[in-house]
């Protein structure tokens, strides 16, 4: 298996058809001009609220959705190119996904052994049954599910949410993935076991696996990821080094997200950071900054043009007319 070092997404646009008439289709723009880079052994956090297009981007990289335009390159090879003939099987060996809901991500009628045996058998068809078994046990131990032999024979309903999520991670490992797209992997878990999962992913990162960590919790983004990108309604509004983005947020939307993180012992009367407004639905015809409707520092031109990219520091970019 060839190791890959990076996945580059350039100017990706994803439109979804949403009803419309017989002759004119209406589209929803789920992602607009998204450009990002995932590197092996590093984590990129994508932060944003529900409906901001985070998952859609991950699903495009996993080749579940096709982007409307833009390119996704894996080590220079363009996977969005129609001429790209690499089968899902080979691609799967490199890129895997972990889902938010640990209850929906495992098949209720199969044992844990089945969930891990399939990826191993698909990607290493030459192994004998005992070798497959050994690998299953090793993978389960790797993700901290011991005693592994007993766990392997259990059904998903016999495991807790945290244990199921560990099985999902083990499944990605069993494939031998170099990149893992984690779609809110801890948001449905108890607070007490979130840290365990984050630390497990952190260990894997040290072993050279690259992560795309999708979350709506900007605090864990800083804890886990080297780099952070903030998304709003399909647009990347601010991105760069995690510390820089979370410590000195520049975009009004990032500032709003940071102020929403509760702090222990402090019950401050918060100043209002945004106008109350519906999250807009973006269509291909929409103009201007998507946050304009809620922004307190809104200017006239915010409604007219999409702000250009401004480089603030070496690795800190923002899309806002203020800078």
């Amino acid at each position, binding site marked *: 298996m060839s190791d890959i070092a990076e996945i580059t997404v350039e100017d990706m646009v994803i439109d979804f058809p949403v009803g419309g008439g017989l002759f004119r289709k209406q589209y929803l723009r789920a992602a607009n001009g998204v450009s990002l880079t995932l590197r092996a052994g590093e984590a990129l956090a994508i932060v944003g609220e529900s409906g901001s297009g985070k998952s859609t981007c991950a699903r495009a990289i996993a080749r579940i959705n096709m982007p409307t335009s833009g390119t996704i390159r894996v080590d220079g090879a363009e996977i969005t190119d129609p001429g790209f003939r690499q089968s*899902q099987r080979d691609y799967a060996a490199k890129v895997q996904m972990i*889902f938010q809901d640990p209850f929906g991500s495992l098949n209720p009628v199969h044992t844990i052994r089945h969930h891990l045996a399939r990826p191993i058998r698909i990607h290493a068809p030459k192994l004998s049954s005992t070798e497959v078994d050994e690998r299953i046990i090793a993978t389960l131990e790797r993700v901290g599910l011991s005693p592994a032999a007993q766990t392997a024979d259990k059904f998903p309903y016999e495991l807790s949410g945290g244990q199921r999520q560990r099985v999902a991670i083990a499944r990605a490992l069993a494939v031998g993935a170099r990149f893992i797209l984690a779609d809110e992997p801890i948001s449905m878990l108890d607070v007490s076991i979130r840290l365990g999962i984050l630390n497990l992913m952190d260990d894997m990162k040290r072993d050279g696996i690259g992560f795309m960590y999708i979350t709506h919790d900007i605090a864990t983004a800083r804890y886990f990821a080297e780099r952070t990108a903030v998304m709003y309604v399909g647009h990347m509004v601010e991105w760069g080094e995690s510390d820089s983005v979370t410590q000195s947020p520049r975009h009004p939307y990032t500032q709003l997200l940071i102020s929403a993180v509760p702090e222990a012992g402090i019950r401050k009367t918060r100043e209002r950071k945004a106008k109350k407004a519906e999250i807009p639905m973006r269509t291909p015809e929409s103009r201007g900054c998507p946050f304009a409707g809620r922004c307190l520092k809104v200017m006239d031109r915010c409604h007219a043009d999409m702000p250009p990219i401004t480089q603030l520091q070496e690795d800190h970019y923002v899309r806002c007319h203020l800078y």
Partner: protein
Amino acid sequence: MTRLLSLLGGIAGFYRGNTAGIVGSTLVALILAMCLAAPALTGYDPDKRVARGHQPPSAEHVMGTTRAGKDIWSQALYGGRVSLMVAFAAATVTSIIALAVGVSSGYFGGRTDEIMMAVTNVMLVFPQLPLLIILAAFLGNVGPFIIALILGLTSWPWGARVMRSQTLAIRKKEFITAAEIMGEAKWRIIVIEIMPNLISLAAGMFVGTALYAIGAQAGLEFLGLGDPTVTSWGTMLYWAQSSAAFFVGAWWDFIVPGTFIALVGGGLALINISIDQISNPKLKTGSYLRTWRKLNAEVEAKRQEA
């Protein structure tokens, strides 16, 4: 081994506190066993004249004889083999077609789904009994095998729609997406990942179709569309009717096959009801109510003591 154990556990769990299921299964199993053990239970050949016509039940002929002097008890047992075989064969054909059409339609979606559902809907709007009668009449006096085939080939659309909707729900689950990303083959996703989740629905469909097939087969044969020389519960009724058993007062001639049909039908219906409670938990009340009553009684008893 664990699989077998969990399967047995599942079966035990199905029958626990499930009176309808126990009664229904016992009834069907008993009649099935009786039909299979027919040579041990009767010494008469069902197709031979063994006594004078229309003899009432006696020690020699426990359920009397037909107009043609054949033993009814023997006919009911041997005929039951044919009737039950037709019912289960029709149910098997229906289940296979409904599963194949429903699951592939739901999983592949798009154009496949549109075409398959168009065919299904056309089949669905045909009035079934008239269609059966026309088909059977067109093919002449049809044997039990053809009847099973006709029933199986005409009664799948309803099941296919149920399977399709359930597949649509399962397909959205993340374990299917995970299998796709992993590079699993499409047929494996359908057969290994989706179908086991449909077992309770498929079982319900199988039993429901068998129930319908028992009735429809008897109906067709009663109308004289079946092959009257093959003994089954339906042709027994046909001969009873054509020999005017009702007018001459030979009640045993039509009561016996009628009772067998009713018992098997009732048994299958009871099984079906209990499967419904599994596949649709909203209908599940029986055992919970009983548990609640028991707990309530205990609480009351403690209160009385205090």
